[in-house]
């Protein structure tokens, strides 16, 4: 039987298991809400490396190695690694892969990459193409800031709607069989571009994509919002989160009681991150450091994890293009 459901969704026949997850984060994230949950918190934003880009690669290596170690597998048991980051030409990921020596596909879905990697990984496992797969992403605040916006030492004021790119990396190991949280369904998003151009308002730009994918997921699978204990979006921040609730309400559904955004789970109010966290690692840090252990322990039973990405570049922004956005949903159940 075909595993595709409805217009954009997949129901896995043999749902792959998430057998371990690990996350490493920077010092600001370490002082944040999830501080105690990270496998490792770096003392500074360089992590002993001599550039922020190298630090990001280092974080990804650490996250992947730690996640694999938790499963009891060896690195050579991993069939494929699916990973990505925010830097041009995926340098953080590509350079991290040099030492791991595993077959690897680099993926770019901006901040939705974690969900994207997990969906493709789950397909490979359910399709019988692999036994063990690692999905991983990273982002680094300073490396992203200098690529997308201004040098970090420039005395520019950040608007209240701006979000703070997370310095962290998260990795999950996905396997066939075993007990643990399973990926049961997924919905792949379409590009949605509400015509917004302000790169200081990425959450609001991505909210329609997130709501669109979430809504489509309910349509395709026949599940309702209250099927899930919690629904999480990746990095919409406080403003984008409010917009998703309103967009879904317009469709006649209410998710205000079981919906949270990962971007609102990383930093404390006092940390001056304004509208919340962003970046590939926003959703990955929340998933790998916090949600996965909650699922594994059975505190959460059914979640819908929606990675959200804004797919613009500094070039497209300077050419006054609006921001195309995408969101992919992964249903994780135990």
């Amino acid at each position, binding site marked *: 039987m075909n595993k595709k459901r409805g217009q954009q969704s997949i129901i896995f026949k043999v749902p792959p298991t998430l057998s371990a997850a690990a996350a490493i984060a920077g010092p600001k994230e370490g002082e944040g809400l999830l501080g105690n949950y990270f496998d490792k918190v770096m003392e500074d*934003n360089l992590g002993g490396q001599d550039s*922020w880009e190298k630090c990001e690669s280092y974080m990804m290596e650490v996250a992947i190695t730690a996640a694999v170690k938790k499963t009891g597998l060896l690195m050579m048991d991993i069939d494929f690694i699916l990973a990505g980051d925010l830097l041009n030409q995926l340098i953080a990921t590509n350079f991290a892969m040099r030492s791991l020596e595993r077959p690897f596909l680099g993926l770019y879905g901006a901040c939705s990459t974690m969900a994207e990697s997990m969906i493709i990984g789950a397909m490979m496992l359910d399709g019988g193409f692999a036994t063990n797969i690692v999905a991983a992403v990273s982002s680094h*605040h*300073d490396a992203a*800031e200098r690529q997308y916006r*201004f*040098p*970090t*030492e*420039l*005395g*520019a*004021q950040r608007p209240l709607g701006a979000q703070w790119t997370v310095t962290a990396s998260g990795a999950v190991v996905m396997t066939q069989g075993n007990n643990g949280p399973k990926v049961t369904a997924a919905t792949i998003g379409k590009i949605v571009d509400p015509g917004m151009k*302000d790169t200081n308002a990425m959450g609001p730009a991505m909210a329609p994509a997130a709501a669109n994918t979430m809504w489509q997921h309910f349509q395709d699978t026949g599940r309702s919002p209250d099927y899930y204990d919690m629904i999480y979006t990746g990095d919409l921040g406080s403003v984008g989160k409010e917009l998703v609730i309103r967009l879904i309400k317009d469709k006649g559904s209410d998710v205000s009681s079981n919906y949270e955004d990962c971007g609102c789970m990383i930093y404390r109010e006092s940390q001056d991150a304004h509208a919340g966290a962003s970046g590939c690692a926003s959703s990955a840090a929340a998933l790998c450091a916090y949600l996965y252990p909650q699922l594994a322990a059975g505190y959460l039973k059914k979640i819908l994890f929606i990675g959200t990405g804004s797919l613009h570049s500094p070039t497209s922004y300077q050419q006054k293009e609006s921001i195309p956005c995408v969101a992919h949903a992964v249903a994780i159940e135990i």
Partner: protein
Amino acid sequence: MQAYIMAFLVGGLICVVGQLLMDLTSLTPAHILVLFVVLGGILSAVGLYQPLVDIGGAGATVPLPGFGHTLVSSTFEEINNSGFLGIFSGALKGAAVGITVAVVFGFTMAVLFNPKG
């Protein structure tokens, strides 16, 4: 004492105009710096900036419109002294110290320090 108060007031007000532009438009700091230098130059050309300098002292010369004023006023002075060629030689003559110092200290600090992020 009066000079300090006037510098504070005039300088502060020029910055308030910049802040209004930042908060109410989508101009980046780079756009605002460019805009202010051009505005300072134009105000200087029509004879409105020198009175501001007379009133505010450093309050008018330290903000970036003051840089535009330096460029334009020294161009005019050079035109008075050496005619047509002054159009092209005046500005950099007047701004020579500022630009050279900026490059030298900019380079030195960049070499000495590393960004903290």
